[in-house]
């Protein structure tokens, strides 16, 4: 990534979208909209002082919604370019409120609320579409109760939990436990405020709440003390709730018993009939990393089969089984139901025992399918290229990176689901085809 930012031959147009591509192979004209960042790229040093003072919290999609970012932000810490951007949908100033603290804090004077979108025209010889994919939304499978059960998460969410830069700094805390900790933090604030109010009232009247409350126990409260006593009762309810939650939180441990469910949305005739290709390896990798974090972790990977086809992949699968407490179970999980302690319970048929089994886990990870990129239909129209029945760009087996329009090539998951090594290989292939489009001279004459 850093190389892209530094390379003299690459002009990086981040936060931009292609709006129109006209012309033909060798002489295309592309219109690109550079969206307003409201931060001057020439001045911003990426120091992050603006994000420190920004008062607005926004759900962070980079962390799959498990943390918050500010309205002025960089997509992630090591992002290239490091230029920050203001999210106009959430920024207080753009929503008619008073603010602008980021502009005051920025020593480089890079914040520019007046910045407008900029449209640039580019003359290019060839186009490569590397538009990527969208992760399947498991809400579409109601029997897995994603969103209803807090401890059923997607593989990408789990990836963020594993990451040292993620929402839990690499600790495998369960989402339900995190929610309780957040609730405790919120209640503690309320408790402090309530305690201050009670203390003020006690000082004013010169009596202790506890004693006065005991005096009124079961009887009628005098008019002048009614408000005080009501407040005291609320305060007591709050402290009781807080101590119950704190007691509960003491028993929290990190997730140690993990279940991975394969083919969530893929190889499923209701959604995508194709295999997403990378999820088996992805689940094995996550289970291995989880075991590296904590050697007590055990994982079960439930799938129709494990597709470890690639250089070194099957060895990786075997190594996971031998060294990382991973069990591979041949089963298509039928349902996930809620269990005690917020632990999800899997209901599945163990095909070896020929029995329907119920098993409880700390955390269930759904290996969600690779679906076509969200804006693929619009991009297909802009580039005037065809899309296949599943929503990926149409190619032929003879010319695997050529789209239906000459001079436009496709690589990566815009082509079909594939893993990183395959994307890299195909990207080089698309680059070579693009060069062929603009190079007429034969370098080596065949005699």
């Amino acid at each position: 990534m850093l190389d892209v930012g530094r390379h003299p031959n690459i002009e990086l147009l981040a936060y931009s979208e292609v709006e129109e591509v006209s012309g033909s192979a060798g002489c295309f004209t592309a219109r690109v909209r550079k969206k307003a960042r409201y931060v001057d790229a020439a001045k911003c040093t990426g120091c992050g002082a603006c994000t420190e003072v920004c008062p607005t919290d926004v759900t962070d999609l980079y962390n799959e919604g498990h943390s918050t970012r500010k309205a002025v932000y960089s997509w992630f810490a090591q992002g290239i370019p490091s230029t920050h951007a203001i999210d106009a949908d959430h920024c207080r100033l753009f929503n008619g409120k008073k603010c602008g603290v980021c502009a005051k804090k920025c020593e480089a004077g890079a914040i520019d609320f007046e910045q407008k979108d900029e449209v640039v025209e580019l003359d290019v010889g060839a186009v490569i579409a590397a538009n990527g994919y969208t992760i399947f939304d498991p809400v579409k499978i109601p029997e897995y109760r994603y969103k209803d059960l807090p401890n059923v998460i997607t593989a990408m969410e789990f990836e963020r939990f594993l990451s040292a830069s993620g929402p839990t700094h690499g600790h495998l805390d369960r989402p339900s436990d995190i929610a309780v900790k957040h609730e405790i933090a919120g209640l503690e604030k309320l408790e402090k405020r309530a305690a201050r109010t009670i203390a003020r009232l006690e000082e004013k009247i010169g009596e202790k709440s506890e004693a006065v409350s005991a005096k009124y126990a079961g009887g009628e409260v005098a008019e002048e003390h009614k408000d005080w006593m009501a407040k005291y009762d609320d305060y007591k309810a709050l402290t009781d709730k807080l101590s119950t939650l704190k007691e509960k939180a003491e028993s929290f441990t990190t997730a140690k018993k993990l279940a991975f469910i394969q083919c969530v949305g893929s190889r499923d005739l209701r959604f995508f009939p194709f295999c997403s290709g990378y999820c088996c390896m992805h689940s094995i990798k996550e289970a291995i990393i989880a075991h590296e974090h904590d050697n007590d972790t055990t994982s079960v990977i439930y799938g129709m089969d494990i597709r470890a086809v690639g250089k070194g992949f099957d060895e990786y699968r075997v190594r996971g089984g031998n060294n990382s407490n991973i069990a591979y179970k041949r089963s298509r999980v039928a349902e996930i139901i809620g269990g005690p302690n917020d632990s999800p319970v899997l209901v599945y048929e163990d095909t070896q025992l020929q029995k329907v089994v119920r098993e409880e886990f700390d955390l269930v990870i759904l290996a969600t399918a690779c679906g076509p990129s969200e804006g693929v239909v619009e991009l297909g129209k802009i580039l005037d290229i065809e899309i296949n029945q599943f929503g990926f760009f149409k190619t032929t087996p003879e010319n695997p990176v050529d789209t239906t329009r000459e001079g436009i090539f496709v690589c990566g998951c815009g082509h079909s689901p594939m893993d990183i090594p395959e994307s890299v290989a195909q990207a080089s292939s698309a680059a070579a085809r693009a060069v062929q489009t603009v190079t007429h001279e034969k370098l080596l004459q065949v005699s």
Partner: protein
Amino acid sequence: MNKDMLVIGGGIAGIQSSLDLAEMGFKVHLVERLPSIGGKMAQLDKTFPTNDCAI
């Protein structure tokens, strides 16, 4: 004949294509929808089968 290249998408595929073309001496315009490049790969902690860091 224009010799510049347009790459749409700054994920691992777009990054690799851009670097290859740039190394061959072509001018590349890399367009990314989000504020930073990296795509889905940048969200990954490690990559298989070597467990290398994704970033």
